[in-house]
């Protein structure tokens, strides 16, 4: 990988992320953990939105299923993260398979509504779980631990584990979108008709992407359950799905790193404005509207331009156009 501005930018970000706990302020560490977890969930949305062209309004359902799975297993006595977290991901992927198999039969407007509806269904199921607090949710007996390695009670340790997983997910996602599979998915986003005409059955590929994205959201959910030691249906609400979409667009869609910035924006907004008013949504809503109507790019796209880091690390241009993170111009626009 060539040493160019983009790589330096990535390195700088990683260093900042690693350095957060060194401030000694546990509050910052916990806040950064939250950003990482929501960032991972938002990344899963970007995988579908920015690359497969699938606008899903139901990803919070998978976030929630992962959280509930981890929570329920923990309450049942399973506390080894090496067992609980993969189990949560597996359960989520099965859900994504079932929902995706039905939802992907539709497209566009309908797809949005169908994903929204199914997510709502899961939300109602969560609310109806009397044994797990119903609408109020339930608490976990404590964090999972990495059996044989680490307990995760320490917030700093937990943060580094979450950060490591985020980086891992990022690497996997980046490889995915550049792989042959990724090319098919991105081609389908541009022109599904053409994709079928050359011999790729679009449905199959979209379904696999949907399931993978679901799994990532499920992992984020399991981590969330551990972070808060608490799970409630609120994280499966359709508002949360919308907020995940908002994070992607605020951060820069189609970049995978952008959504993490979007998560930071969202959480910072909430934190900072909450000091002045409880009605911070009164400002966040219009912010979203303004971003959509008037601002051309998200935060990550802006940063990349500001640091002059448009050139991607690899020398020849990617077969599928601008490499990620995208420079401004291929901003979620692509072909329609």
């Amino acid at each position: 990988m060539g040493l160019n501005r983009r790589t330096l930018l990535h390195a700088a970000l990683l260093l900042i992320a690693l350095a957060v706990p060194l401030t000694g302020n546990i509050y910052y560490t916990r806040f950064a953990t939250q950003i990482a977890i929501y960032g991972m969930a938002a990344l899963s949305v970007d995988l579908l939105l920015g690359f497969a062209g699938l606008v899903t309004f139901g990803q919070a359902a998978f976030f929630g299923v992962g959280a509930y799975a981890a929570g329920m297993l923990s309450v049942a006595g399973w506390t080894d993260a090496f067992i609980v977290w993969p189990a949560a991901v597996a359960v989520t992927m099965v859900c994504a398979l079932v929902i995706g198999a039905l939802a992907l039969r539709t497209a566009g407007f309908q797809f949005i509504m169908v994903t929204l509806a199914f997510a709502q269904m899961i939300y109602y199921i969560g609310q109806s779980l009397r044994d797990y607090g119903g609408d109020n949710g339930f608490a976990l007996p404590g964090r999972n631990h990495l059996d044989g390695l680490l307990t995760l009670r320490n917030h700093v340790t937990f943060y580094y584990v979450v950060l490591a997983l985020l980086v891992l997910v990022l690497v996997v996602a980046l490889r995915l979108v550049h792989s042959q599979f990724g090319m098919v998915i991105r081609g389908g986003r541009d022109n599904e008709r053409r994709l079928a005409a050359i011999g790729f059955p679009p449905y199959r590929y979209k379904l696999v992407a949907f399931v993978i994205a679901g799994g990532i959201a499920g992992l984020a959910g399991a981590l969330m359950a551990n972070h808060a030691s608490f799970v409630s249906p609120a994280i499966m609400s359709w508002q949360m799905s919308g907020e995940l979409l908002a994070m992607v667009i605020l951060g820069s869609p189609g970049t995978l790193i952008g959504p993490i910035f979007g998560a930071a924006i969202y959480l910072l907004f909430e934190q900072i404005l909450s000091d002045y008013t409880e009605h911070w949504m009164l400002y966040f809503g219009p912010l979203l509207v303004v971003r959509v109507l008037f601002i051309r790019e998200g935060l990550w796209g802006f940063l990349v331009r500001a640091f002059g880091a448009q050139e991607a690390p690899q020398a020849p241009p990617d077969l599928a156009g601008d490499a990620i993170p995208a420079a401004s111009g291929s901003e979620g626009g692509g072909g329609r």
Partner: protein
Amino acid sequence: MTWSLLIEQSFNGLQLGLMLFLMAVGVTLVFGIMRVINLAHGSMFMIGGYALVATFAATRSYWLAVPLALVAVLIVAAILEILVLRPLYKRELLDQVLATFGLTLFFNELVVVIWGRIPLNLTIPAFLDGHVEIFPGIAYPVYRLAITAVAVVVGVMLFWLITRTRLGALIRAGSDKREIVEALGVNIGLLYTLIFGLGAALAGLAGMMTGPLLSIESGMGDPILILTLVVIVIGGVGSVRGALVGGLLVGLFDTFSRVLIPQFFGVGAGSALVGMAVYVLMAIVLVFSRTGLFAAHRG
């Protein structure tokens, strides 16, 4: 299931179905003609409810309050259409979803700022209070009958509007042949504002009528919006007929499942399945027809 329960629930289902129809018309027309998905429609429902609370508090008369509240909803809708919806007509689906979602967040918070978090109550007008015997031995709330009647009247008026007036012809033409409508010299911008306003007024009316049965609170339009979207998936995008059939299907299905499922499955598992019932219906319809029952045009 006794006769009286069956009849009572049928009326309830019909009423819910007609409310959903009123909501769905707005969304389906706006999407069918202007190609915009408007998630803030649920907010129109909510604003209708709050507006009526405000106008009733000011005038103490339903005969004044309802029309005034409708005007308020129309004003809000017109402002919204000009400021936010217009730029969205040319944009892609994602932008529309996000912008209108942002509006929903805004409105949900705005009503809290103005009226606080405590749910408000709309009282049923005195002359509509009480029960009436619709069949021997079966008493049914007068109010529910009244709003059902209003919804039917509105439905008939809509039907007349769409099939018998010039505006209606433009609406039908606009959904297929935008260029022709423009070529006829019609002010497309004004037409769109009118259509949007009509949809919003219907939603606001639904909110006002349902208000006394629910409580007026922030976010009250959200579950209604989602049910409305299910109606449109089932009924087909852009189709008013689909909105009616879909609305009635969902209304009846939802109402009866809430009564029957706990009877068969017990209260515990029952409550989860009740929430799911409508979505299972949607899934079944999708398996048979991926564009819904009466799709006006593809996607």
